[in-house]
């Protein structure tokens, strides 16, 4: 009966609240108790442990994000590095071209190779200059290494170069030491053929072959290549001579077109 009446009183909200307030005040007096400190210590240790787990998880997440960001940065830096290397190489090529332009007695037009035609035996290059730049058919094309070819057609902004490694190419040449005249043609493979050199003419491997200047297209003294192989036969009037071109036609990026007044009129050599 007594318990029921206590329960009845406890169900009255105001009295219960007062009871809780009273209880809370008593608890406040035990604030410095050793057992409370112990319980709080255990709880705080647990919280600390959970915090360490959280910190570890956060660190891993951050580490992963940093790792991703660094990977991207490395990729970007590699790309920049690659671009800078390209710029250095281009700078070196342009310096050589500038030197050529300064030293050349000819009227040169700088051009960039923007394409190529790689039909076997009929290779050509496409330049970003054309008739609007006063470039015309049959003008010689050179770079810092030597003779590249000649212009075979033009439009207003572009032109096509027939390189030396083309079956239709024919250049009047001169051997540097003997001063003997000959012709440079292309038959196949990666070398040029020096034709019409008589058997009695002394030719040495490594000898330079330049343009002879005997045509309206190619001015004299432009380097074509060097003699690499010489073949002689009792039955032939002429020697068979292989010439390694001084220009790497597959890596040409910038060239000069030699502007000459009579270019259009010149017939192909």
């Amino acid at each position, binding site marked *: 009966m007594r318990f029921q009446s206590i329960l009845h009183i406890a169900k009255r*909200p105001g009295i219960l609240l007062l009871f809780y307030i009273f*209880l*809370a005040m008593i*608890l406040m007096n035990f*604030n410095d108790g050793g057992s409370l400190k112990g319980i709080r210590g255990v*709880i705080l240790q647990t919280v600390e442990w959970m915090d360490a787990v*959280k910190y570890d998880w956060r660190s891993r997440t951050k580490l992963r994000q940093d790792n991703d960001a660094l990977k991207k940065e490395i990729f970007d830096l590699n790309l920049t590095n690659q671009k800078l290397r390209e710029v250095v190489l281009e700078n070196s090529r342009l310096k050589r071209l500038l030197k050529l332009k300064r030293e050349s007695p000819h009227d040169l037009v700088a051009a960039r190779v923007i394409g190529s035609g790689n039909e076997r035996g009929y290779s050509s290059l496409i330049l970003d200059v054309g008739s609007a730049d006063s470039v015309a058919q049959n003008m010689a094309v050179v770079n810092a290494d030597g003779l590249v070819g000649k212009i075979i057609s033009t439009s207003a902004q572009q032109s096509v170069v027939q390189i030396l490694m083309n079956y239709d190419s024919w250049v009047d040449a001169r051997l540097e030491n003997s001063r003997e005249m000959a012709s440079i043609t292309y038959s196949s493979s990666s070398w040029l053929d020096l034709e019409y050199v008589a058997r009695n003419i002394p030719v040495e491997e490594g000898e330079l072959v330049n343009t002879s200047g005997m045509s309206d297209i190619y001015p004299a003294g432009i380097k074509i290549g060097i003699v690499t192989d010489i073949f002689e036969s009792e039955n032939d009037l002429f020697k068979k001579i292989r010439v390694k071109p001084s220009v790497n036609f597959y890596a040409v990026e910038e060239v000069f077109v030699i502007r000459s007044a009579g270019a259009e009129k010149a017939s192909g050599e």
Partner: protein
Amino acid sequence: MNNIYWFYGLLFLGAVLFQTTLIDFVQVMYMKPDLILILVVIIGMRHGAVVGSTAGFFGGILSDLISSGLFGLGALGMAVAGHLAALIPAWFKEGGDTTLSKLVRFLITFFLSGVVHDIIYFTIGTIGSGAPWLESFALIIPNLFYSALFGVLIYFAVTKVIREYE
């Protein structure tokens, strides 16, 4: 009915765990939601003053255990807040039972109960410490607003679960 109290017990446990470990994820400047206060107010509103003040008292003890403040102070403040959370909605009985009126009722109840809880907590907590009471109190108002935002979400979620039990 007993299942609901187990459910509340689990909610309190989850709230304590969240409050001690993951609360920084939802911290904005210095404002952190007081999850235990939110639960006490919700329980007070749903189940009346007896259950509300009881939940407040024991929720406050939990809160005191994980804090380094005066032990029993949280229990006192929360018990009063739980009791008030049961009384305040009665003032708005005429407001109807729409979602908007429930929302407004919860916000007003939470805010008033929260203010009373904080007044008790900071008044008794700063007695004799020389701490600037007014400045402390000014800081807790934005915190209460922030807690109220969380409270709305928890209120509707808990109400939905409780409705399924009942």
